[in-house]
């Protein structure tokens, strides 16, 4: 795999690294987007059920994640939003007694196929966590950690990736003079952008964000949201959020999850974000997005 040369070509395509390209949310032609999405599904989730031991956490979820769009997963606490997200990069494998039925396909390939290398899946599907979790090492090493795993060892190559990734994460200007300082010395919002840069450094196709702004202040939250807009041109983004305003602001598509009477999470409705928030087809969705419960 030639990560560096691909990276290099991107450097010039994506414009000057270090400059956050802040795009205004695209809202036009939303209804036809839904039709497009079906054609350009990056991930296809078919009849997915997740079990922890005997407990069924998710039941029969089918969903297409459109390419180069932001998909939000919303729903009340405990409805399985994070479980769903974590089944997209097989992080649930770490949970003892985890079992999965149905299919999660990335570019048409079943990621739970026994022949598939989980390492490769996790490179292609990156993840950003609720709490910023920079490694206890320098800013440079944090971003270089992923590329090193894939055999990139030359310092000049790494330096290029680090600069590019930090630029994509709109952090380069703030940290370019202190790359050797600890990543843990940054502010919460900077730490989270560092974690995003770290995820970007291995050139994933999909980025999963598990409530990425829930531990941040409003200004940092806004930066993360702007960043998501600038990233969606190159990446497919899935975000779990309990903040409905955030889902409405940043996402192109929204999936609404709720627990069924057996306490398993089910997909109530999936559609273009404006439709979900202004014209929900299901009563439960309407009650949730209008704040009548949840």
């Amino acid at each position: 795999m030639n990560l560096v040369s691909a990276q290099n070509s991107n450097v010039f395509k994506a414009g000057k690294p270090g400059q956050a390209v802040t795009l205004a949310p695209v809202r036009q032609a939303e209804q036809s987007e839904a039709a497009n999405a079906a054609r350009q599904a990056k991930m296809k989730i078919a009849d997915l059920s997740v079990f922890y031991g005997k407990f069924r956490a998710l039941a029969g979820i089918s969903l297409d994640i459109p390419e180069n769009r932001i998909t939000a997963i919303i729903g009340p606490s405990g409805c399985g939003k994070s479980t769903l997200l974590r089944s997209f990069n097989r992080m649930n494998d770490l949970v003892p007694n985890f079992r999965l039925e149905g299919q999660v396909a990335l570019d048409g390939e079943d990621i739970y196929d026994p022949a598939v290398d989980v390492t490769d899946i996790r490179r292609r599907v990156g993840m950003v966590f609720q709490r910023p979790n920079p490694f206890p090492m320098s800013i440079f090493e944090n971003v270089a950690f992923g590329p090193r795993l894939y055999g990139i060892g030359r310092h000049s190559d790494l330096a290029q990736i680090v600069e590019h990734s930090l630029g994509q994460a709109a952090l380069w200007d703030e940290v370019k003079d202190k790359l050797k300082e600890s990543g843990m010395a940054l502010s919460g919002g900077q730490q989270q952008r560092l974690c995003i840069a770290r995820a970007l450094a291995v050139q994933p196709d999909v980025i999963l964000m598990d409530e990425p702004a829930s531990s941040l202040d409003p200004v940092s939250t806004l930066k993360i949201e702007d960043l998501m807009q600038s990233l969606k041109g190159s990446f497919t983004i899935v975000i779990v959020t309990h903040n409905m305003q955030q889902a409405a602001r940043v996402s192109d598509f929204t999936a609404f999850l709720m627990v069924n009477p057996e306490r398993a999470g089910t997909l109530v409705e999936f559609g273009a974000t404006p439709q979900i928030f202004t014209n929900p087809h299901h009563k439960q969705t309407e009650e949730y997005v209008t704040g009548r419960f949840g």
Partner: protein
Amino acid sequence: MSGYAEISKNFRPEHGGSLRRRRKITNVFMLGLAGLMSLLAVGILVWIVGYVVYRGGSSINLDFLTQTPRPVGIAGGGVLHAIEGTLILAFLAGLFAILPGVAAAFYVAYNPNTPLGIVVRFGTDVLSGVPSIVIGIFVYVLVVKSSGHYSALAGGMALAILMLPIIIRTTEEMIKLVPGTLREGSLALGAPEWKTALKVTLPAAMNGIITGFLLGIARAAGETAPLLFTALGNDRFEVGKMVTSSLQNGQNIFQALVNIIQQPVDSLPLTLFKYSQQPDIERINQSWGVALVLIVIVLVTNIGARLWVQRRSSQLKG
């Protein structure tokens, strides 16, 4: 009068003056008691160190630290052999114990409920309760008897077994303190579990692991009983001379070092024990000096480790 209003009076400040006074007195009394007990604990430490300095200070001079012992009855001489021996034993013990200790700690921390994890944890607890002299006999049978001679190697192994539970326990605690999200962050990048442990969890827990390791070293450096059966003691042990004679016999430095660890060695606690038993006032005075050197070495190790860890963690946090 209603019951509730009557009870509520108790909460008002003007009510229950005697109760308040009694509480205040009890508070002062308990606080004083706690303070007294703390003073007692610290006082014992100060007493021990102070008395050792008082009795041993006069023996300390350059010769004491740089010369080997003279025969009983001849004034002067030092305990260089014991200082060198202690350092060699501590080094060997640390060398033997660090890898299995840290590896076992990772296993126990990550697999606490597997059969092997439970056995290792229970075994660690039992091992830390085994009297150190028993460990000495064990290594005696295992190494000394089979090799035919006492040696620094055997002493180092006995001390390593002693250190093992301390290292496993502290390392396990430190690994558990590392946030699980760090591990997840690494795994989510596609890093395999072993690389995550080595590159992320281990560095994050490093400060605590080093502290535990040095506590183990300090503990081992002060042990006497297991060395009686293993390192034995050797008051003519002198690293410099042994290396020189090995080199003169055409051996390289590596062979010289192998020779050294195959010799019986002395250590400060062993020397302290032997000197204090001798019917010679000079030796008894020197045994206080030995105690002082031992305390200083252990204290310097401890304080040095803590300072280094403090500096390191402040660098990490920025």
